[in-house]
């Protein structure tokens, strides 16, 4: 039983970081209908950038982390401006293919600049473990969960009440009508890419401070895809709830089934679960149902 609590806490907290990254995906999907397949690579490259700034340049975290986020904003802006904007009004498949190309480009870039491919970030959070009941949790997990929850709240409020947030949701509904209202949709797209990259960066920093930098972070991106699909492509709430579910399933499955089945089952279980959910709820758990008046 002692294990159970441990698995649950680890699962939920790691899952919340997945949620955070997934929300970046939802953001882009919601405003422009583009599936960003470079999610995992964005997570990885931002953790390497963090490494470059904190370790290679030696800046203190309180200064370095904000710089990483600013760089992520710039990266998002660049991606939108030079890769996606020229493709506006082209078939959506071309846009998605561009993000796939971007993922390979980033892969190559990472190998080029940081060829040793595995490293660790300096400690960003206090080291002491915390005892919750019988479980021992390192503080990093709790910090990650807290930050993720905070950003979820901020993002939800932003989308609900801010001028830009409302316009972003409107763009998801009807781009043409948004332009008829005199709103530059390009500005909306670039804003959503900037935010999404910043969230991938924060997710990358959190994951890297927990588990180190390495290609495993791309898998984190992949898991965020499954979070998005499980929660519904266009729902922040869905992403926020599906993340811990995936984290839980992964950790419980890994903890109890590895001995019974094969090693590596931990990595597969979330995806098996998604296939089952998709068969029952094709829009995901919280996906927006298409509004149809009859």
């Amino acid at each position, binding site marked *: 039983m002692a294990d159970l609590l441990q698995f649950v806490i680890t699962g939920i907290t790691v899952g919340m970081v997945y949620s955070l990254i997934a929300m970046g995906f939802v953001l882009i999907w919601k405003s422009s209908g583009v599936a960003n397949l470079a999610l995992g690579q964005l997570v990885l490259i931002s953790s390497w950038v963090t490494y470059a700034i904190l370790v290679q340049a030696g800046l203190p975290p309180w200064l370095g982390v904000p710089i990483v986020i600013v760089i992520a904003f710039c990266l998002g802006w660049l991606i939108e401006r030079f890769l996606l904007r020229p493709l506006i*009004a082209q078939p959506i498949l071309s846009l998605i293919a561009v993000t796939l190309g971007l993922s390979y480009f980033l892969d190559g870039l990472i190998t080029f600049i940081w060829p040793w491919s595995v490293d660790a970030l300096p400690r960003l959070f206090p080291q002491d473990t915390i005892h919750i009941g019988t479980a021992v949790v390192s503080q990093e997990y709790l910090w990650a969960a807290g930050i993720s929850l905070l950003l979820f709240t901020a993002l939800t409020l932003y989308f609900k009440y801010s*001028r830009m947030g*409302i*316009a972003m*949701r*409107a763009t*998801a*509904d*009807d781009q*043409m*009508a*948004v*332009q*008829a*209202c*005199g*709103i*530059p949709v390009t500005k909306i797209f670039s804003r959503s890419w900037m935010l999404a990259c910043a969230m991938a960066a924060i997710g990358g920093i959190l994951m890297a401070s927990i588990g180190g930098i390495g290609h495993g972070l791309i898998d984190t991106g992949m898991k965020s895809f499954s979070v998005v699909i499980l929660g519904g492509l266009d729902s922040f709430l869905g992403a926020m709830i599906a993340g811990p579910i995936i984290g839980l399933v992964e950790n419980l499955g890994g903890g109890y089934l590895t001995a019974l089945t094969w090693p590596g089952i931990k990595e597969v279980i979330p995806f098996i679960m998604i296939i089952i959910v998709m068969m029952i709820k094709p829009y995901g758990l919280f996906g*927006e149902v298409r*509004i149809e*008046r009859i």
Partner: protein
Amino acid sequence: MLKLNNIEVTYLNVIRVLHGVSLSVPDGSIVTLLGANGAGKSTTLKAISGLLHIEEGEVTDGSIEWDDTRIDKKSPEDIGKLGIVQALEGRRVFGHLTTEENLLVGAFNRRNRAEINRDIEMVYEYFPRLRDLRKNTAGYLSGGEQQMLVIGRAMMATPKLMMLDEPSLGLAPMLVEEIYEIIKRFNDEQKTSVLIVEQNVRVALSIAHYGYVMENGRIVLDGDAEFLKNNEDVKEFYIGLSAMGDKKNYREIKHYKRRKRWL
């Protein structure tokens, strides 16, 4: 004052849909653009609002002027900032947003929160029904309510020129009258020019000061509302009034058809 001088519009560089359209909308007036399906009415509006660029269309000849500056090469958002707003055909509300959020999107380019709130009140003043529905999801409003919302959203931009594309589409006749009354009141009180594209000729001419009739990408007839209402051809083809009960002379019909094509 909006002026179109002999504009030609081509889609995808090959399909020419407007062949020299000229019209003007004086400040503070209601002008209507009438015609059958495919005559080029909506294209004319999109040429003015700049939305044409998005649909791979272009003004290939002639010019569009707003207060003596050319706007036919400008982007939709720049044109929007000049105070020209278009309500698209077919009640395109933002379905997943609430009524009030829809109105806020209309005010996107304005910063003064107090003024925006005042104008939301103004829209509710014109369309009292929307006030009760302010928290409702727009996608589930009735057709009439959605049309009101689309017009209200256009009002939120404090336009100098409001362009409406078939506000009567698919609405019950009583509702159409009601909406047109409100448009007229809005024009009276706010001095906003209005350009209405419409197939419902009778109701459009009931509030318009001036009208143009389009066919096959050309303007074939224009004049004061009174003149158009009494024009035989308009009556026959668009209002559907003809000498009822009389025996129709087949040759006369042919004559009309021929005339229509020549007009």
